[in-house]
């Protein structure tokens, strides 16, 4: 694969990781209102998928959505400002951490209602088909979301109408404290694809190149008008479900095993071993990303809060 492309994926993953670490830090300083659901550990999914997308392709995101948006090209300053509830944020402070959106780059918004994004992505696919473009729509959702009725209804509809949608299940093995095995008798979510007559693949979601490859095929298939694909990426969140979850329901050995499969260190090791990238280049990259994340935090902190009365604006067009 093209070295530059791989380096770019590495940079994006790092950007997401450092961004999330910064969010965590700011939360600790009481600068983040509400709650947060960090994407750390799952970066390879969003980056591997979005590296196949054009600016005019769509994604639909979730409560754990910072990574999806950044991978699709969201501006760090505006994302951080939204998370801090500032007027300079993407939604002017109306959305917050669980509701980042940037329609100018195809981020159709993050919904915090688990599973709600699935039919919305189907609808974006329908619009693409009706308008006759070769865009695609990607829906990110969790293992937990795949037990919602919307999963069945949304995917079936996309299947029968052969819509250009890629359903990306981020299977991090848990929905809050509920293990996937407690609530699903099949081993893989992707096995359900056969019920809709569409391809379903299960891949290592901590291997960005594997994610890239699998979604590449799904995206090409969608662009050719052959319909949707269900791509299941097995991954793991490094932290608890939300900020105050100590995640004691996860066995220690399991956590350690997954931490050792961290997608970023994994790619880094691989790149250094192959000699495709030098330590110096990586260090420079890390410096740049650290600076841009810090700049985003500064931008957000310096921004003012929205004026109270603006709460009344924008209910209707």
């Amino acid at each position, binding site marked *: 694969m093209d070295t530059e492309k791989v380096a770019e994926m590495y940079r994006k993953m790092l950007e997401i990781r450092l961004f999330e670490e910064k969010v965590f830090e700011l939360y600790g300083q009481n600068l983040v209102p509400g709650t947060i659901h960090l994407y750390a550990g799952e970066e390879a999914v969003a980056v591997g998928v979005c590296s196949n997308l054009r600016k005019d392709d769509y994604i639909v995101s979730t409560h754990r959505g910072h990574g999806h948006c950044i991978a699709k090209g969201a501006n760090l300053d505006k994302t951080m400002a939204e998370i801090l509830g500032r007027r300079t944020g993407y939604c002017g402070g109306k959305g*917050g951490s669980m*509701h980042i959106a940037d329609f100018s780059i195809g981020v159709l918004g993050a919904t915090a209602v688990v599973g709600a994004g699935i039919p919305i992505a189907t609808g974006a696919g329908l619009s693409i088909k009706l308008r006759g473009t070769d865009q695609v729509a990607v829906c990110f959702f969790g293992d937990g979301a795949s037990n919602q009725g919307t999963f069945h209804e949304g995917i079936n509809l996309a299947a029968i109408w052969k819509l250009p949608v890629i359903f990306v299940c981020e299977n991090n093995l848990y929905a809050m404290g509920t293990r996937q095995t407690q609530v699903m008798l099949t081993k893989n979510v992707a096995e359900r694809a056969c019920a809709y007559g569409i391809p379903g693949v299960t891949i290592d979601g901590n291997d960005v190149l594997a994610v890239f490859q699998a979604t590449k095929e799904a995206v090409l298939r969608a662009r050719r008008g052959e319909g949707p694909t269900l791509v299941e990426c097995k991954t793991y969140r490094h932290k608890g479900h939300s900020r105050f979850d100590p995640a004691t329901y996860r066995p220690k050995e399991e956590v350690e095993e997954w931490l050792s499969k961290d997608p970023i260190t994994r790619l880094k090791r691989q790149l250094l071993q192959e000699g495709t990238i030098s330590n110096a280049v990586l260090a420079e990259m890390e410096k740049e990303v650290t600076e841009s994340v810090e700049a985003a935090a500064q931008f957000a902190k310096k921004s003012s809060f929205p004026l*109270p009365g603006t709460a009344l604006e924008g209910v209707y067009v």
Partner: protein
Amino acid sequence: MREITYRDALREALIEEMQRDKTVFLLGEDIGLYWEGAFKVTKELAKRFGVERVRDTPISESAIVGAAVGAAITGMRPVAEIMFGDLVTLAMDQIVNQAAKIHYMFGGQANVPLVIRTPFGGGVNIAAHHSQSLEAWFMHTPGLYVATPSTPYDAKGLLKTAIRNDNPVVFCEHKLLYPIKGLIPEEEFTIPFGSADIKREGADVTIVATMFMVHEALKAAETLEKDNLSVEVVDPRTLIPLDKEAIVSSVKKTGHLIVVTEDCKTAGVGAEIAAIVAEEAIDYLDAPIRRVAEPDTPIPFSPTLEKFVIPNEESIIKAVKEIV
């Protein structure tokens, strides 16, 4: 008497009713061994009663309520937990078309002894999908009872009644109420539905308030007392059935009515209460009725915005001063 939290009051009601009646069981997302409820109302219950009776479910709100309906019409008394009130939207068919109508539509052949517990309300900056107050929707659905406890005492007494009731009950809780403390008796008690509680007696103004707004209204009453204004705070405790009598007689005494609720103003809980008073006691009113409610917006995220739209002590005082 002893002092416990609203959360523990609910939990005690569940424990007592599960002990009393083997057909009572709980189902919901993350209510079991590993998380014990998003707001910890079911803490240690799975350990105590076993996972057969305290059932973790997949994230499937429609199936949670639907399964509860099916169990209820065949001899069980399920208590379903919907993690956030906003997510009852996913179960609306099962609640509105099924649970609420089965008894009537099938000519009284079956009862639906089902409780749906769910927390409403804002105030914790979790934005438009986790902060709404949707009680009025259920008032608008014949066949459902709607309970809205504001104190630990009411929470425990009403939940026990809800579980024993043979009708489907939407049991509305509030995120900000879980940690608040209050006195409850040592001995067992229940609170009948349709019986309002005068949370504070007064002579000049009646404030009808629900759930968290009861506490804001009480604060406002305290403050207004310094201005020599005597405020009566009436908490309906259940919206269906509604204790019209208590509301109307308070208004007849004070001649002034403010209704404070956290839901959207238009076609909200306050609209119904104001209409009842207009129908039954308009001649007793010395001033127009005022509704203090959410100003018909989704709940915004940023603290400055959220604070602006949710009623509080100040907005209540302002409304009172406008009419007295």
